């Protein structure tokens, strides 16, 4: 034992040990990325399964159909007659329809403001009180008047009305059923869910006149296409990458695919061969959606309140009609109705590879964690390095390694790192509060500042005539913060943490160069991976105007509480800025 300890002590003094961290760090990056690419393999992912036995998906006969189709056609005529009318007129008509079915109807006004635009509207919702129920629990059916692309939900709204009328005939409901028809898919439903949980700002969103019990689940119908469909697209991403319980998705896949014979698709993968490439593509699309944290449908607003929700979008050319869609919803509602307790059995953190294949958090999390660990390793490395005295020229330097560390001057590095960290709040504030027309010019200004700011800061820094140590400490603190933020974020939003970690990975290896040409080259490289460049090139790749990207980001921040912009400006950008300052730095020997 003593021999082991002494050999560890000996190893500690070995100068070769100090050469190891950069390689270890690189290994972490490579391992993190490689890990992700292993996940779609059969050995690392699992088939989905129903965890909550009470759900019993697909175990009941569904009876929606027959003469209900006649009713559906009539409601479709009614809804089409309302096209082009204003929100309140539409709601007047819908209110009459709901009341004639015998439901309790409520209406709610809301006004939101973001990027200088106001979003106003009026939600209408109807509560089907469970015939023998006691108003303690409820499930929600959402049919937004328009989907998130602005298309009219031309079959979804009549289907919701027909289903409401059909559900009223059953006496088996143990939970109230709430049918919500918001005017759009982005703001209205958010206002409704906020108000349902009394988390709304009363000056902008009015309270709900009637309420029911605790929400146990929600299904949104987004059925815009006129013709018959082939399969159902299940959209499940919530705000900030939060996901509904996997059991809900599994039940719907099982009911739709297993019982009704309607294939399901996820993440816009309309054809899925279940091969490695398709699984990887599905997973990466899922990660991108999760990382952006943007609401993907009306269901997204429910998920932050721990209400599991999905949106169902029929697509493709096939022979399935509206009644089939209705039966899927009926079957899902019967399953949710069976629930004795809130959905909690299955996973809340998962990546789906296919509709029936997933990896759980235990398998995928190491990938982002290892990526984040690379920053921490380098931070520790630079801390140790900053403590060791500057190498002396001479033969004795190697033979007698000093044990007393050099004194670290922390003030300057700490102030600089703290300042840059808080500097991130400025673009965050500016982009979230400017009007929509000002966003593009503001972006140009910020991009230009991005080039100028490192020069400015390094110029100021040079006036202090810093030696190597301050630069090492700056880097140490910057990477320490980055590693800390990213590993914490990985547990909340894996994909965002991974994406930021990946884009920030080169920052690990940036350090002051004695050669000015080399320094400027590195600065050029850094400019290529700067947050602004990445933002711009991504929006160019997806053919979206940068102004509208920023507008949507501000919208997400102001209305949904989407924190992606904050991660971008307060985690990634400061780390990038400090690295740029480093590469331009000239340590005084």
């Amino acid at each position, binding site marked *: 034992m003593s021999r082991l300890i002494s050999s560890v002590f000996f190893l500690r003094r070995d100068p070769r040990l100090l050469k190891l961290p950069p390689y270890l760090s690189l290994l972490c990056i490579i391992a993190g990325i490689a890990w992700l690419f292993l996940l779609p393999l059969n050995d690392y992912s699992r088939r989905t399964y129903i965890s909550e036995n*009470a759900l019993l998906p697909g175990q009941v006969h569904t*009876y*929606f*159909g*027959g*003469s*209900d*189709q*006649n*009713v559906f*056609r*009539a*409601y479709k*005529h*009614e809804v089409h007659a309302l096209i082009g009318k204003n929100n309140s007129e539409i709601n007047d008509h819908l209110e*009459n*329809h709901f*009341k*004639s*079915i*015998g439901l*309790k109807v409520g209406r709610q006004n809301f006004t939101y403001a973001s990027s200088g635009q106001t979003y106003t509207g009026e939600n209408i919702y109807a509560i089907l*009180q469970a*015939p*023998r*129920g*006691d*108003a*303690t*629990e409820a499930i929600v059916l959402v049919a937004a008047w328009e989907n998130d692309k602005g298309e009219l939900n031309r079959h979804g709204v009549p289907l919701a009305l027909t289903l409401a*009328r*059909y559900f*009223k*005939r*059953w*006496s088996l409901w143990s939970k109230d059923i709430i049918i919500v028809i918001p005017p759009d898919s982005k703001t209205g439903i958010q206002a409704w869910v906020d108000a349902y*949980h*009394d*988390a709304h700002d009363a000056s902008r969103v009015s309270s709900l006149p*009637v*309420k*029911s*019990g*605790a929400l146990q689940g929600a299904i949104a119908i987004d059925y815009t296409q006129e013709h018959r469909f082939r399969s159902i697209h299940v959209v499940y991403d919530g705000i900030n990458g939060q996901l509904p319980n996997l059991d809900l998705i599994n039940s719907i896949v099982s009911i739709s695919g297993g019982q009704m014979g309607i294939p399901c698709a996820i993440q816009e993968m309309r054809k899925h061969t279940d091969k490695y490439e398709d699984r990887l593509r599905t997973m990466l699309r899922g990660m991108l959606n999760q990382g952006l944290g943007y609401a993907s449908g009306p269901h997204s607003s429910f998920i932050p*309140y*721990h209400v599991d929700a999905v949106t169902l979008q029929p697509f493709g050319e096939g022979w399935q009609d509206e009644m089939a869609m209705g039966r899927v919803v009926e079957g899902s509602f019967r399953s949710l109705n069976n629930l*004795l*307790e*809130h959905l909690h059995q299955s996973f809340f953190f998962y990546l789906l590879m296919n509709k029936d294949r997933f990896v759980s958090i235990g398998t995928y999390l190491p990938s982002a964690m290892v990526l984040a660990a690379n920053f921490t390793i380098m931070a520790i490395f630079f801390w140790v390095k900053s403590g060791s005295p500057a190498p002396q020229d001479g033969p004795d330097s190697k033979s007698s390694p000093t044990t007393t560390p050099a004194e670290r001057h922390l003030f300057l590095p700490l102030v600089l790192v703290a300042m840059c960290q808080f500097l991130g709040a400025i673009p965050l504030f500016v982009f979230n509060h400017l009007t929509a027309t000002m966003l593009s010019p503001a972006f140009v200004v910020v991009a230009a500042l991005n080039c100028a700011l490192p020069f400015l800061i390094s110029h100021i820094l040079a006036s202090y005539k810093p030696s190597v140590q301050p630069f090492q400490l700056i880097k140490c603190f910057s990477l320490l913060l980055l590693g800390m933020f990213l590993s914490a974020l990985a547990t909340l939003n894996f994909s965002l943490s991974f994406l930021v970690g990946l884009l920030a990975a080169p920052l690990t290896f940036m350090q002051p160069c004695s050669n000015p040409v080399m320094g400027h080259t590195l600065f050029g490289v850094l400019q290529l991976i700067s947050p602004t460049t990445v933002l711009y090139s991504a929006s160019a790749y997806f053919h979206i105007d940068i102004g509208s990207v920023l507008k949507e980001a501000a919208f997400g921040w102001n209305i949904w509480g989407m924190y992606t912009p904050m991660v971008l400006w307060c985690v990634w950008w400061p780390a990038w800025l400090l690295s740029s300052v480093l590469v331009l730095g000239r340590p005084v020997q």
Partner: protein
Amino acid sequence: MRHLLAFICLLPLVSWVTAADYYEQLNLRPLPLSALLASFNFRSNTSFYDFESHNFRYFPRSLGQILQHAGTRELHLRFSLGRWDAESWGTRPWEGQREGGTGVELWAWLESESDEEADEKWLILTNALSGLFCASLNFVDGTRTTRPVMSFQPEGDHPTSSIPNLRLLHGVLPKEVVCTENLTPFLKLLPCKGKVGVSTLLDGHKLFDSAYQSMAIDVKPICPEDGDCVLEIEQTIDMVLDIERSQRPQEIPRPPPSRDLKCDTSKPYHAPNTCFPLGYNASQEWSLSQVFGHPMKGTCPLTDPEIPPVCIQVPHSRSVYTSAGVHQMKNADGRSRCFTFDSEGDFDIILPAPDADDTGEIIANTTTTMTTTDDELIKSPTPLIYAERSLMGHGQERGGVQTILTNPSQDTEVEFIYMESLPWFMRVYLHTLNARLEGSRGKAQPAMIEDIYYRPAVDRARGTQLELRMRIPPASTVFLTYDFEKTILRYTEYPPDANRGFDVAAAVITTVRPRVQSVRTTTLLLNLPVPDFSMPYNVIIFTSTAIALAFGGMYNILVRRLVAADEAPSRLARAKLGKLIEKFRSRKSTRK
């Protein structure tokens, strides 16, 4: 012989007593939205002398003995399910006095010298009733029992001498699911036992399929002006049936054939395959036998034949068809009519749809609005107060309760008492209690909360009791809110069932002025932070495995020595051992 003589002498007296001492009636009232309220009322009296001498005639012996044993002077027991839709249906039956919160509710006045004695008697009472009614009333323990101060007043006529010794205890079981096993003992208490008369209509399938049902038992002493005091037991069942649902021949609501759909033919797009359905509130024809599954069988022979067993509240302008041998009497108030019929044979009535009288077929109701004309239904009066209660907030730590109380009247101020009995794990912050008034007409309002009675909870011993005396000006709404903190329970305190959450009993609102009326809110579902119960299990398994492996391994390493066979200590060692033993022995012997 003397007994027989006495019996013969008393016979006419007995028959007179019979006529007056048992009463049963069914009141039917069609409600808007194709609902039907059926109120069953059964009443029987017994004189105190008979009661004390265990001479039970119509008063059920099983219940009577419990009451005597537990010293109960007045008892109110409620089994309720579903919701009363006050906005559409108006005032509750019996002014809400025969209604309970969802689940089981019990309150009683017990005669006792001290609170401790009352608690003992309450324990006896709840346990005995639990057995009698197959309900979990034995779970009404100290944490669920309250002693309301303002909300409940005795209904019976108690002698003034006993009033200081009467103690009111009140308990609720909001989670109790009322079902057939509670109905059967209820029917057994009736003199006619559900075999004949009005009670034959009470069938578990129909009763528990109703949108709202409340079974009530009230026992109280009554002292008429002229005569002796009697003990009265009143059994009431109120149920609201969905006519469309209860008339369905089969349980599964398959879509009807297209030809049976009632369509609005006035729509321009109306076609054989397109049908805009007529309003749900369009009145439809119904008959007693369809709604209840079978006709009523005879009348109970123990009742006064003069009292009509069935009454229906519809305007006189509407015609009601009856089965043969039924005599119809229209009451003078123009709102109701009653039926008398033979004590044998079936009774059935048919209420045709209002428009069907003249033409014989249903005229399409072109408007889908909610209006129901006055000649169709008797409009029930608006309740004095509307109450709705819901939970606020989200998350596992804190929450709030909001009660919206609306006074719909345009000119009358309502004074009422709001009572909540909350479980101890809901820690109420009374300082957050806030009453906000909306819709008042700009006048300076007097303080809405006039009096507060608050008895804070004691962990694991008793719940919170909150009684507020409040006042709402006409045409205004009060938002009553308070916050609470959720407690983390010990893990054995979670019920062993599926974790649905904890039910919070309904709030009881009793109006004091202008008249006494009672309203109950719905129950609430409180989600407490729940640990992952499989986790301790896993921990136990893991630690056991780890200890087993580590202990086994360590023990092995410490004790076992691995040596080659030829290295094993063989005879040499044994010889050494033998020497040692010999040495020991010799030493022993030398000592001797």
